[in-house]
């Protein structure tokens, strides 16, 4: 199977760089998979889990928003926050969610509120997913 170059960087550091088979990216309009030879694409990310497949092995990385760019040289993900699933701080995530809930309650009606609610939903989905897999 053909491989392609994949890089994921957060402002603090470069998390991963190398040849991979497939990457599943949580896009803002829905998840999409990237294989070698994908058409050029720029997409926004939503908070979610990004799955990297290298030779049959899967590696999962939590991203909290950012961008993905598929270009002639490969896929580049610029994430706001990127942590591998094993390292993520569940307590910090829960704290973030409760802070957001408090914020949403105080906000006035408007597109800003809608956006915040959508973000909160993504975070909650992410949390359910993480705690769900932790139990298995």
């Amino acid at each position: 199977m053909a491989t392609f170059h994949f890089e994921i960087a957060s402002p603090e550091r470069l998390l991963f760089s190398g040849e991979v088979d497939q990457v599943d990216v949580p896009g803002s309009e829905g998840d999409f998979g990237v294989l070698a030879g994908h058409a050029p694409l720029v997409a926004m990310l939503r908070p979610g889990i990004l799955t990297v497949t290298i030779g049959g092995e899967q590696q999962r990385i939590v991203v909290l928003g950012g961008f993905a760019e598929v270009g002639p040289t490969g896929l580049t993900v610029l994430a706001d926050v990127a942590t591998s699933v094993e390292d993520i701080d569940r307590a910090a995530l829960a704290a973030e969610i409760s802070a957001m809930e408090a914020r949403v309650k105080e906000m006035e009606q408007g597109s800003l509120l809608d956006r915040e609610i959508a973000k909160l939903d993504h975070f909650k989905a992410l949390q359910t997913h993480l705690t769900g897999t932790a139990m298995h």
Partner: protein
Amino acid sequence: MASLKDMRVRLASTKATQKITKAMQMVAASKLRRAQAAAEAARPYAERMEKVLSSIASTVADINSAPKLLAGTGQDQVHLLVVCTAERGLCGAFNSSIVRLAREKINALLADGKTVKILCVGRKGADQLRRQHSSRIIEVIELRVKTLGFEHAQKVSSKIIALYENGEFDVATLFFSRFKSVISQIPTALQVIPPVFDAAPVDGGASASYEYEPDELDILGELLPRNITVQVFRALLENAASEQGARMSAMDNATRNAGEMIRKQTITYNRTRQAMITKELIEIISGAEAL
């Protein structure tokens, strides 16, 4: 001539100073290691961001419909200079070399009849610029933090963007010191609004027309402010590393100079002491002879 006691006091004070500079040098060295690692870890993101942005910018069909952050206001009358310096002194020429570069730019712009506004990040630069250009400083942001985070950069960049959207300026330039090595930091000016991309995008970037999800303007609208934050973040990190590097070599010099002073003072002290003893001996002997 100074008495022996005065010389002893002076020698003791030089030694105490040397101890302080030595300690500062060691503290700077350990902070430098951390700052340098942080600056280097942040480089890939900033570089890739620039690459992605430049390849998107090159495919934007109509530059006039592009967001103002990319295309600029179409004028260059009002310039905003964001001068990033340290919060503390005692780091050699670090602060003054950034300020000197900024000052040259200010004078050049003023000579061209442009309006200049200054946003200072870091107290030291503000102190130095205030002497000549206090009326042009619109705000001073102090960053007294232990470890520099992305949110600090966000604070600065959101201020810059808010000013831009209120039409306060046309062109923004960042001033900071690029960290090259411990002994070499290069004061740098980087224009962030509108962004300048060096050369053409790499191999076939222009021919690849991207699909956007959601649409192009939404993405550019998100990407451009973020790019500014990233550039500010990078500037701050480079600055932090440069500051520690500059302090380390400045304090190393100071320690060495103090050592040299101690050596000279000790020699003079001993000579004077011996001269005093000789003088006393002569007095005693000549007194005895007179009897």
